[in-house]
């Protein structure tokens, strides 16, 4: 089980070694010490690895992640798990702006707060935040689920497409074309599924969440909605 100290091993060497591992590798478990806020740690992973990072990370940790599980024991900077394709990224602390940005798949779990633009332009990723999310979260969110146990900041879901937003706390304001939607049994079941995959085994009740999504009035230009642009 490789144990890498980023104070000693250059990041490029670490990432290079991780990238060389074939999908069938049995060198799966890696521990990274001393990240000290460095950027792009474990970016571009492409195999079912299990990476533990002991400490806070900088920007784009686990960027474009595929297949791997990345556990960040600390906080994450801008763009954690940006453009993730599959796999699981878990931040025990807070996440900065643009967490899970443009992600296509996989699951991002943040135990603390996520900052502004959480899930911006998301394209299928599932994001679960135990704390709150900041302003402009789910901006232009196309697909996937954003689940927030705490509150959401201003302009939630501005210009949203088809992503599903579930917020348990308050929403400071909704963005253009984002509206409250009903929580049917079907939606509760879907939310329950996301929560289970995120590691919450029944301790969180889906009925406590409110669903938000697209009003679909901006799908084809209509001069009467020009004010929204």
């Amino acid at each position, binding site marked *: 089980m490789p144990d890498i100290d980023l104070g000693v091993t250059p990041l*490029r060497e670490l990432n290079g070694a991780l990238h060389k591992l074939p999908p069938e590798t049995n060198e799966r478990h890696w521990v990274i010490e001393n990240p000290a806020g460095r*950027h792009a740690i474990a970016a*571009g992973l492409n195999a079912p690895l299990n990476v533990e990072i002991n400490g806070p990370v900088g*920007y*784009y940790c686990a960027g474009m992640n595929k297949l791997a599980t990345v556990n960040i024991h600390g906080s994450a900077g*801008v763009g954690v798990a940006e453009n993730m394709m599959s796999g699981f990224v878990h931040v025990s602390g807070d996440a900065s702006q643009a967490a899970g940005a443009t992600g296509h798949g996989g699951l991002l779990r943040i135990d603390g707060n996520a900052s502004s633009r959480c899930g911006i332009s998301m394209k299928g990723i599932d994001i679960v935040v135990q704390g709150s999310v900041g302003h402009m979260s789910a901006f*232009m969110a196309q697909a996937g689920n954003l689940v927030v146990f705490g509150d959401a900041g201003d302009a939630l879901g501005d210009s949203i497409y088809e992503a599903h937003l579930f917020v348990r706390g308050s929403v400071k304001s909704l963005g253009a074309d984002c509206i409250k939607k009903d929580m049917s049994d079907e939606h509760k079941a879907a939310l329950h599924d996301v929560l289970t995959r995120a590691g919450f085994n029944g301790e969180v009740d889906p009925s406590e969440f409110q669903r938000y999504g697209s009003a679909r009035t901006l799908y084809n230009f209509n*001069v009467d909605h*020009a004010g929204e642009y």
Partner: protein
Amino acid sequence: MDTTPITTPRKSATFDDYSMSEIRRAAASGIYDIRGGGAKRKVPHFDDLLFLGASMSRYPLEGYREKCATDVWLGTRFAEKPIHLKIPVTIAGMSFGSLSAQAKESLGRGASKMGTSTTTGDGGMTEEERGHSSILVYQLLPSRYGMNPDDLRRADAIEIVIGQGAKPGGGGMLLGQKISKRVAEMRTLPEGIDQRSACRHPDWTGPDDLEIKIQELREIMDWQKPIYIKVGASRPYYDTALAVKSGADVIVLDGMQGGTAATQEVFIEHVGLPTLGAIRPAVQALQDLGMHRKVQLIVSGGIRSGADVAKALALGADAVSVGTAALAAIGDNDPALEEEYQRLGTTAGAYDDWHEGQCPAGINTQIPELAARLDPELGGRRLANYLSVLTLETQTIARACGKSHVHNLEPEDLVALTVEAAAMAQVPLAGTKWIPGLNTE
């Protein structure tokens, strides 16, 4: 009976036919005019520059035997695998979605035959394009439609798009008529809706944070592939300096004549600089940073002939990129289709409502029957022919100026026909020593 003659009816130069028709259209529809292409109005351009061929003090190269080399290395600054092009002309970024699959395939075939690259667009990489392009540049745009690390890894270079010449500051636009099932799937959008696109990148703003983003991309690609930054011509000196400081290997500079698939007409015609005005400041920035020829400069926006290519190179570019011309080469706006253009309410050479997806040439459409009209093999051959002519023309001019490599063309090989062109290109007015703004001789 009153026989006073009437004065000749006179239309306003300000409120001309075009402006008046546009006002009526706006009043009827309540939406801005959207079209494709680049700036159509006349602006100072390469036509206003001339080369000084060999004479008493300079001697030309013979054709054929005395080589005039045309190859270009791109991405030598940081990448382990820089790109080697056989000709200094590349194919600009155009999306599958705005273009048909057949059009993208044509471009790939033609470019590969000539040993140069094509570029994906705002929609991601298709299998056809990767299959047919021997050198493929993969764009990273604000929308991130279709972006994925597998395509990143199999690309030959990454082009981070800050903006393009037609709309510096604007995002992508694709209207419902072209969001077919396949396009929708690639972009993760519902079919048939109007795509709204972001104009800023989602996870960074500003060159200081771009630097960190570039670092991430390099790490993901293990530092192998070159990273380009594309900007629309706006503040070319500072934009180039900042692109260098952010860590770019190559800068792509697109002037206002550069085309887009679709955006507001006012954006195209009134935002951004003409290509001619953007090149020297960009080159100056590279020279001031000691990076000229180390960070390569690709110029696009209105490149039509080998004369344009040669002039861009003489002003300091390492290569040029063609978009509008490449589409024309494979059949866009061909007078042979005049009847159909008339039916669309336009005429060959003026057709620019590409967002409606009705392109009779099968290029700017997703309608299968129309797209099928374009034979990708024939299209590829036509593009290769055109690129070949561009290269031969560039060599002809370069040889006449005594150059054994097209990169040895320099500003002093040029003079200008107008004061504006002289000032923008920073070359003397023909027959004089005068460069407006630089010297007083």
